[in-house]
C-alpha cells in the first residue's frame, strides 16, 4: 500500500496587502511523510508554523510551492494543486481534521454535528446517530447535552464534540490540532486510547500536542518544525 501522506518541499508565506504588501514567511521546504499506523507529532515553539502546516495539508491554506500527496482511494492526489471539488471529496473520504475550536452551526444538535461526516458519506442516519451517541458517551459528555446545539457549551465540552466528529469516520489520514488542549485528565486519557485504536487500524496521523503526557503516549516520532522556519534560516 502506498504511503498515505507525503509532503514534499512545501513553502508558504502570507502577503498582507492591507499592510503595504509585507511578506510574512511561514515555512520553507517542508518535507516529510506519515506511514499508515504512525502518529507523527509536530514539535517546536508557538508561532513556528505548526498549525499552518496542518491547514495546508487540509487544503485550508494555499501553498506557494511544493506538493502535498495524499493517497485517496488508491490514487495520488496533490492537495496543493487540486480543485475544490477534489479537496472536498478527499476530506469526505480520506482525510479528517480535528481543529482546536468547533465551528458551530445554529440549531444543529451536538449528536447531529458528530454524525454529520458519516451521513455525508451516505451512511444511514440512524446508524450514524448510534455511533455518534457511543462516542459522546465514551468522551463523558453529559447525556442531557446531546440534543442541544453546542454553541453554549464550555470549551472542553465543545472540544469533545469536535473530537467525536473527527474520530467517527474511518478516514485513513487524521490531522489533529491540539485536540486535548482544554480537556481534563480523564478525558485526555480517553483521547489517548482513541488515538491508539486509530493507530491499530492503520490510520496515519499528524498532530500537535502541547501536553507532554499526551505527546509521550501517542508520538512515534517528533518532527521539529523549527527546521523549516525561514526566520531561523535568516538568522543562521
Amino acid at each position, binding site marked *: 500500500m502506498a504511503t498515505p501522506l507525503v509532503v514534499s518541499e512545501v513553502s508558504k508565506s502570507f502577503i498582507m*496587502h*492591507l499592510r503595504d504588501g509585507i511578506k510574512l514567511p511561514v515555512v520553507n521546504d517542508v518535507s516529510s511523510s506519515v506511514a499508515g499506523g504512525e502518529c507523527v507529532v509536530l514539535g517546536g515553539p508557538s508561532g513556528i508554523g505548526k498549525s499552518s502546516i496542518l491547514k495546508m495539508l487540509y*487544503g*485550508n491554506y494555499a501553498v506557494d510551492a511544493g506538493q502535498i500527496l495524499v493517497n485517496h482511494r488508491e490514487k495520488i492526489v496533490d492537495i496543493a494543486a487540486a480543485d*475544490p*471539488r477534489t*479537496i*472536498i471529496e478527499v476530506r469526505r473520504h480520506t482525510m479528517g481534521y480535528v481543529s482546536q475550536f468547533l465551528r458551530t*452551526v445554529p440549531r444543529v444538535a451536538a449528536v447531529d454535528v458528530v454524525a454529520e461526516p458519516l451521513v455525508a458519506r451516505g451512511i444511514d442516519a440512524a446508524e450514524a446517530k448510534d455511533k455518534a451517541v457511543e462516542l459522546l458517551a465514551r468522551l463523558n459528555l453529559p447525556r442531557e447535552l446531546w440534543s442541544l446545539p453546542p454553541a453554549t457549551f464550555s470549551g472542553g465540552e465543545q472540544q469533545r464534540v469536535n473530537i467525536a466528529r473527527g474520530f467517527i469516520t474511518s478516514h485513513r489520514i487524521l490531522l489533529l490540532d491540539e485536540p486535548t488542549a482544554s480537556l481534563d485528565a480523564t478525558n485526555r486519557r480517553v483521547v489517548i486510547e482513541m488515538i491508539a485504536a486509530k493507530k491499530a487500524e492503520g490510520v496515519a496521523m499528524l498532530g500537535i500536542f502541547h501536553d507532554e503526557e499526551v505527546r509521550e503516549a501517542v508520538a512515534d516520532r517528533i518532527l521539529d518544525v523549527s527546521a523549516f522556519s525561514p526566520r531561523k534560516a535568516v538568522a543562521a
Partner: protein
Amino acid sequence: MSETPLLKVSGVSKFYGSRIGCQDVSFDLWPGEVLAIVGESGSGKTTLLNCLSTRLMPSAGSVEYRMRDGNFRDLYHMSEAERRFLMRTDWGFVHQNPADGLRMTVSAGANVGERLMAVGDRHYGKIRETATDWLGRVEISADRIDDQPRAFSGGMRQRLQIARNLVTGPRLVFMDEPTGGLDVSVQARLLDLVRGLVNDLGLSAIVVTHDLAVARLLSHRMMVMKDGHVIEQGLTDRVLDDPREPYTQLLVSSILQV
C-alpha cells in the same frame, strides 16, 4: 463523484452601454455543489446571477445546462418557451424580496401548488397533500395553508418562497441574498433549513450574498467579484481563511466579530 458538470459557463459578459456589469466569467458547476458569489453592492454579482438564470441576456458568452436526458443545451439558444419551462420545473429562483417570487394574493397552498400544476399534476387532493408536506418542511404550520402570504411575516414569506421553489424537485436553485432582509434569529433558522434541504436533496445552488458568514455556512466554493470581474475563487474555507487578493483580504478583515 459524478464526472459531468451540470452547468458550463464560459466567457459570460454583460455590458450596460459602456459600463461593465460582469466580464468574462467562466466556471463549471457540479451536481450537489453550492457556489457562493460574494462582493460588495455594485460588484456585478446579481447581474451575473441574472445572466446565468437567463433572466437577463448577456452581451457575450455561453451557458450550457445538462438536461435530464443528459444532453447539454445552450441556454441562450433555447426558445423562450423552453426556458420558461426549465425555470418552472428544473430550476428554482429565490428572490431577496419574497414578494418578487410569490403571488401575494393567492393562498400559501396555491403558491406551492402552482409549481406542481406546471409539471402536470392535476389531482387537487394530491397537490394539497404535497403542499401541506412542504409547508411542514419549511416549518409553516398546516393551518396556515389557506392564508395569503400578505398575512405572513418576512421570515415565513421567505420560507414559503423556498417551498414553492423546491416542490418540483429542481436540480439547480439560484438564490439572490436569500437572508437579506431578515433579522438574525430568523436568518439562522432559514440558513439551517436551506442547508439541510440542499444536503438532503443533493441540489446544486448558486447563492449571491454579501454576507461572508452565509457563504461559509452554505457554500462549498466561492467566487469573489469586484467591478464586474471574478478576482478570486476557490474552496470556501480557503478563500476565507487564506485570502490572496487585496480586495478579498479587505472583505475578510472587515467582518465584525461578535
